[in-house]
């Protein structure tokens, strides 16, 4: 049986303290790309009691995603937005979700992100990462942006870190290991980078703005 909303809030407040939990509950966070980074970021944020997630991805779940992305075998073929929403609702039934099953472009980015207070870049391709980061920093300077670069391969998880680039822009990852140079993506290292992104979001909400 699913607990009531009051029981849910009480349990979260016992863990995080009432002040911090209220900040999490009133936050709206966008996750751009729902692959290895985005699906794991979303799970972390949902479990922490973030109030509203804006989930954006054009793609469907594929068998090659399952080694690192938070989907299930029976969800192959579903849109990632819908499959992830299903999984998140099982974990956090009172989470508010806004789903956008479309490709992000320079044109639609400002509108898709207008309700977000903090934005997570969680794309796979370097060109898409750069497009989103440039677009957000140019047109939405009031928002916080957490991006990722470099988490491929089996190298040490200790080289994955968070760096503050400017007052509202953070970059997670080792900034070098590239899938383009033939490295595969390993679930634990991608999750580690996703956890860096999610943790920075929670720290920003806690007004702890250093990485």
């Amino acid at each position, binding site marked *: 049986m699913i607990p009531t909303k009051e029981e849910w809030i009480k349990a979260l407040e016992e863990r995080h303290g009432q002040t911090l939990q209220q900040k999490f509950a009133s936050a709206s966070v966008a996750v751009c*790309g729902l*692959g*290895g*980074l*985005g699906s794991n970021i979303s799970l972390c944020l949902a479990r922490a009691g973030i109030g509203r997630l804006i989930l954006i991805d054009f793609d469907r779940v594929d068998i090659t995603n399952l080694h690192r992305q938070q989907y299930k075998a029976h969800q192959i073929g579903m849109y990632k937005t819908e499959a992830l929403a299903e999984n998140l609702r099982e974990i956090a039934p009172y989470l508010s979700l806004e789903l956008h099953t479309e490709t992000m472009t320079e044109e639609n980015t400002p509108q898709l992100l207008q309700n977000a207070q903090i934005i997570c870049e*969680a*794309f*796979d*391709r*370097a*060109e898409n*990462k*750069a497009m989103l*980061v*440039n677009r957000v*920093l*140019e047109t939405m*300077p009031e928002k916080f942006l957490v*991006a*990722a*670069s*470099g*988490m*491929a391969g089996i190298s040490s998880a200790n080289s994955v870190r968070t760096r503050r*680039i*400017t*007052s509202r*822009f953070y*970059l997670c990852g080792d*900034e*070098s*290991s*590239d*899938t*383009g140079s033939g*490295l595969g*993506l390993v679930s634990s290292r*991608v999750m580690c980078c996703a956890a860096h992104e999610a943790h920075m979001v929670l720290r920003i909400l806690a007004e702890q703005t250093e990485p």
Partner: protein
Amino acid sequence: MVIINGTSLPMDGKTLSEYLEMSNYNPLRIAVERNGHIVPKAKYNEITLTDGDVLEIVSFVGGG
């Protein structure tokens, strides 16, 4: 001197585009901050690096 990604370099007088090209950056994979502000891609050609500038060039790699 211009500080680029933490290193002091004698790049005064060059445009940002010239520096990016000589350093083999792919303009489609980067974001450039100059003195704490993002440089719009359309301005890469216009901006001349000057003494005391602090640049951070973020070069993205694939994976996610």
